[in-house]
């Protein structure tokens, strides 16, 4: 489903450049659960951002479902972003001014979904995650685990093909982390959602089918 060919990424630093990723070749198949691991600064988050269209590679080709992303115009790219990709962050990144319900609803708004459909989708997901009672609370009224649950609900509500998770349990204690990882596993197995996670934790990595090790911008 995802194919990277000779992807590199570098930032200019002074007169030289700082290479983050070098010549990455990667295939991720539909329904896989992949964990990206590596030391700090190895480039794993950058790789995830490139996969999620939040950053553009300096060189190389990116195919999503066989379509060349690097040749897409802004509009198509946004469509792909909205329709096929869901993001989960380490710091949850919920919008403080919005309630749980509204946070989950936001991606649907950006997809210009009609109100009735929005309502039922959000209701479904609230139900599924057992957070109906919390729908009118604001993020600062929730625990970290609950916030991440909302974050995942928000990523899922748009029915993406792939979820990209950047250290989703990094800010959680182990019990909560376990819950979240179980949830990912379930999503992967039952809902056939492709999951790519960046993690430091060996334990979390075992939930996936495959581990990709990155060192100094290269797949090891």
């Amino acid at each position, binding site marked *: 489903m995802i194919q990277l060919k000779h992807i590199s990424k570098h930032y200019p630093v002074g007169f030289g450049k700082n290479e983050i990723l070098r010549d990455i070749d990667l295939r991720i198949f539909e329904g896989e659960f992949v964990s990206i691991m590596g030391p700090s600064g190895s480039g794993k*988050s950058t790789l995830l*951002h490139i996969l*999620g269209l*939040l*950053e553009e590679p300096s060189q190389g080709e990116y195919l999503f479902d066989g379509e060349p992303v690097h040749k897409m115009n*802004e509009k198509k790219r*946004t469509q792909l*972003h*909205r329709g096929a990709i869901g*993001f989960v*962050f380490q*710091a949850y*990144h*919920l*919008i*403080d*001014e*919005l309630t749980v319900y*509204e946070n989950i*609803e*936001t*991606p649907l*708004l*950006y*997809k*210009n979904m009609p109100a009735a459909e929005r309502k039922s989708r959000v209701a479904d997901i609230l139900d599924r995650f057992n957070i109906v009672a919390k729908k009118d609370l604001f993020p600062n009224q929730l625990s970290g685990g609950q916030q991440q649950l909302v974050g995942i609900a*928000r*990523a899922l509500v*748009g029915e993406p093909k792939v979820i990209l998770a950047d250290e989703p349990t990094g800010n959680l204690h182990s019990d909560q982390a376990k819950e979240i990882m179980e949830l990912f596993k379930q999503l992967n197995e039952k809902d056939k959602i492709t999951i790519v996670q960046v993690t430091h934790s060996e334990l979390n990595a075992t939930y996936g089918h495959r581990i990709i090790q990155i060192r100094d911008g290269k797949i090891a």
Partner: protein
Amino acid sequence: MIKNYLKIAWRNLWRNRVFSSINMAGLGIGMAVSFTLILYVLFQFSYDDFHKNNRYIYQLKVGDDGGANTPVPLGPFLQKSTPEIKEVIRTSYPTPHLLKVGDKSLKLSGFYADPTFLEVFTFPIIKGQAKLTEENSIILTESTARKLFGNAEPVGQIVNVDIHRPLIVTAVVKDPPRNSTFQFSYLASWALFRSMELWVRNEEWGNFGVNTFVQLPPAVDPAVVERKIRNVLHEQSAVIPATSYLLLHGMSKWRLYSEIKGGKITGGEIASVRLFALLGLGILLIACVNFMNLSTAQSERRAREVGVRKAVGANRKMLIGQFMSESMLLVMISLILALLLMWGMLPTFNTLTGSSLKLSQAPLSFWLAIIILALFTAAISGSYPAFVLSAFKPIKVLKGGLVEVRGNSRPRQVLVMFQFTLAIILIIVTIVIYRQISFIRNQPIGYDPKGLVDVQLEGKVYENYDAFLQEAIRSGAAVNGSVLMSPITNAGASMWALKWPGQLAGEENINFGVVTATEHFISTFGLTLKEGRDFLSAGDSLSLMLNETAVKTMHLKEPVLGQQVRINGQDRTIVGIVKDFVWMKSYMPASPVVIPFNPSWRGSITMKLNPQLSVSECLQRIEKVYHSFNPDYPFEYTFVDETYKRKYAYEQVLGALINVFATLAIIISCLGLLGLSVFAAARRKKEIGIRKVLGAGIAQVTVLLSKEFLKPVLIAILVASPIAWYVMMKWLENYTYRISMDWWIYLLAGMIAIVIALLTVSIQSVKAASMNPVKALRTE
């Protein structure tokens, strides 16, 4: 989507109540000011636009200066000789007359006009017939009719004008609106004017005393007509110099482009209209800057939200939409606030400017304008946060915890500088205008206006003016008096074709100001004689006084006294030379004035009140004397010093308005500064805490926090001073006697700005500096 935007917008406003209210207060004030000025400007532009023929009506103006006075026979001549002209209307100058019905008598102002006046100038007729053909007919305005007849039917009734002249009311018209150049309480027929005034009957070309208007058919090019009639005056009468050519002054330009120089329409009121429009816009901009500053100051907090929204699929356009709807909501709330403020402020504005603007009577164009302006404000105010914030790269924001928005305080400082530049310019302008006004008001005017009272000569007082004066003196109320053609503060008459010994060719065209007077002119007014004597008695009927400038203009040889000057066909002997005195406005250069002894041109009497008695006592006594002559007339008088002061009403209004604007500009700027300092203190909480732990005192921290805001204000002083200097130099050029732009003015303005800015900032800085550092560090 919009609903969602608004919901978020509302939550954000509520969450940042302090910033929001600062924003709204600033925008509200700024909008209220600019809306008021829009209303004022629209009112100025609406002058005379209610006349159906307004695009085809022209007033005939004469010569380089575009004088409004034209000779009586000009109108009929043009009507006959120029087929391109559809209609010609002559009017007299409005003068007050006594209107009496039964025992009700009122002194009201009106004028004489040609029969078809109301066909050309379409004041709506309520009842009766429009034509003013009959000599004994009079047309009343609605309010005049109500005052005289109450609810009774006025048409066909008789009104006694100046006691002896019964006129029949033939029509009632609506009152002229405020935006009408013609203001009158009644109209009388030209036929009556003719039968009353010899000079009108005489139809002299050389006597310029009436206004002439023409209406052209729509198809006719006014330039063609203008060319055709240009030299009519000189052609018809050789007495009139060729420099008195005719011009057409279109009705749409009467109000705003009333100044004519060198035969060209140059400007007029439009200058202050432009000034006001600029001021309104400037103050609104200052308020918009607050908005931008406060929104970008919060941008660090908002940046994360932007990142998240981008990550879940928002594109830039949507984010711009969101920020724009936020500013739109805020602007709409401010708009309501502004209208409320305006509603409260208008009465004061009206008193200040002598206008009568009402929100309830605002034209549609006003509402349209404010909606456009509100949208424009929202767009400007929202643009900076919308475009800057929406451009954030989401990963930068999402990677770390806190976001550093670099270089962010620079544009904010530039904006603060911009605000203060405008504010300081306004402060300097205020100081200069105030100084100039007090300067010209304290200019020596050449006579002593204190205790001088003008009374118009009417009825029996007109006929027996000398007896009236003697009675008044005998009553102890007045110590002296002299009869003039019009009050000295309003003496605008002029004359040419004078002859004097040693006159050069062409000098007969020189214009001389004319002030006619009778006995005791010098002593009544307290003028200074340079040579010779005052008028002493009726035996001076062929005497003349000159002012110093007139002597210079005539380049008379010494001894000047005793020489003969020919005025109006009479040889008069110079008996006195008066030092120059102000008889128009003191910022006019001294002009040559001739003062013939001439009681037959009398219009008003000026009396010096007895300084031994109180003013009210004097006036009571004079009133008694007046009523013994004129029992039916109300006793009316004006104080010369008050009338003189009123001549500077324009400057005074300008000064007062600019003062208000400057104050508001500073208030708005300070609101913004306050917001920024609140924000800065919050942002640097940790820094302050650390510094205090390291031993910094309150004073040091306060200085640290205030310094950031001082720099833009200092730069603003440097930027504002030359701009203000240039603007005020231009303005001062209107005045012959003017103040100099001393360096201390800039210093004072700068000090005012700095002190106010520091006070504003320090409120917050001191608060932040006095906080317990442990608290600050714990929150991190």
